[in-house]
C-alpha cells in the first residue's frame, strides 16, 4: 500500500504535469496556485451558504432557491481546485508525499464527498427542488450541513498547512 503510494507519487512527478510545472517558467507555480485558490474560494464560499441554510440560517428562503446556484458554483470550484491540485502536487510529488498534512487533507475531501453522496440519496434532498420541505425534513438535513462544514474546513486547513511544513 505504502509502496504503491510512493510509486504513484514518483510517477506523478515524472509525468507531463510535473514537467509543465517545473520547466515552463518562474510564474507557472504561482499562476496554477492562484487558480487553485480561486477554485477553493468558489467551492467553500458556495458550500458555506448551502450548509448554513441546512443548519437553519435564512429559514425564510426555501432550500430549493439556494441549492441550485450554490451547488453549481461549488461544483465548478471543486473541479478547478481538483485539476490544479493535481498539477501543484506533481511539481514535487515525492517530497509532498511525506508531508504530514497531505493524507489528512485527502481523507477530509473523501469524507466531504461521501457526505455529499449520502445527502443526495436522502428523500428530503431529492424532494426539495419540487416543493419546500417540512420543518421535520429540514431538521433531518441539518446534520449534513454541519458535517460538510467540518470536513471542508478540515480539508482547507490541512491544505494550507502543507505549505508550512
Amino acid at each position, binding site marked *: 500500500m505504502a509502496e504503491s503510494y510512493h510509486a504513484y507519487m514518483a510517477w506523478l512527478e515524472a509525468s507531463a504535469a510535473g514537467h509543465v510545472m517545473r520547466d515552463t517558467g*518562474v*510564474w507557472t*507555480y504561482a499562476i496554477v496556485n492562484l487558480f487553485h485558490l480561486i477554485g477553493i474560494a468558489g467551492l467553500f464560499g458556495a458550500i458555506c451558504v448551502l450548509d448554513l441554510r441546512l443548519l437553519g440560517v435564512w429559514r425564510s428562503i426555501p432550500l430549493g432557491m439556494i441549492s441550485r446556484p450554490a451547488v453549481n458554483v461549488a461544483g465548478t470550484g471543486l473541479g478547478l481546485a481538483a485539476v490544479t491540485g493535481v498539477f501543484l502536487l506533481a511539481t*514535487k510529488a515525492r517530497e509532498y508525499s511525506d508531508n504530514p498534512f497531505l493524507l489528512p487533507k485527502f481523507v477530509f475531501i473523501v469524507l466531504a464527498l461521501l457526505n455529499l453522496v449520502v445527502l443526495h440519496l436522502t428523500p428530503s434532498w431529492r424532494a426539495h427542488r419540487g416543493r419546500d420541505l417540512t420543518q421535520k425534513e429540514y431538521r433531518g438535513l441539518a446534520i449534513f450541513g454541519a458535517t460538510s462544514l467540518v470536513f471542508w*474546513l478540515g480539508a*482547507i*486547513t490541512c491544505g494550507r*498547512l502543507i505549505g508550512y511544513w
Partner: protein
Amino acid sequence: MPKRILAAAALAASFAMPAAAHHGWSGQEEKVTELTGTVTKGVSLAGPHGEMQIKVGTVLWEVTLAPPARTAAAGLKPGVIPVGATVTVRGNKSTEPGHREMKTILVVHGDKRYAVYPERN
C-alpha cells in the same frame, strides 16, 4: 447573523495562526550567519520558492531562496552555479532543532553576488 459568521471566520483563522510562525522569516533565527560549502544540488526554481543544497563539511544544508520570479530576477537561475562549485550563503538558519535549512539573503559564487533579498542584506 453577521456575528455568527465572524465567529466562524475567527475560528477558521485561529487554525492557521500557529503555523504562520513557520513561514516567512519568523521560523528562522534572528541573527544572520554565513555558510560556505560545495553545491550538491544546483538552483531549482520549481515550486513555491527557489532552492539549492550545499554540503558544509559532512553536513547537507537546504538553502531556501526567494520565490522563483524574485530569485531569477536576482540573476540566480538554474545552471548558473554548477554542482561542485564552492559558494557562501548568507541568511537565517531555521530555529527548528535538527532542521538544517537556511533562508537565504545572499549567495556568493566567486566574484558573483546574488542578493535575492537585497533589502535584508
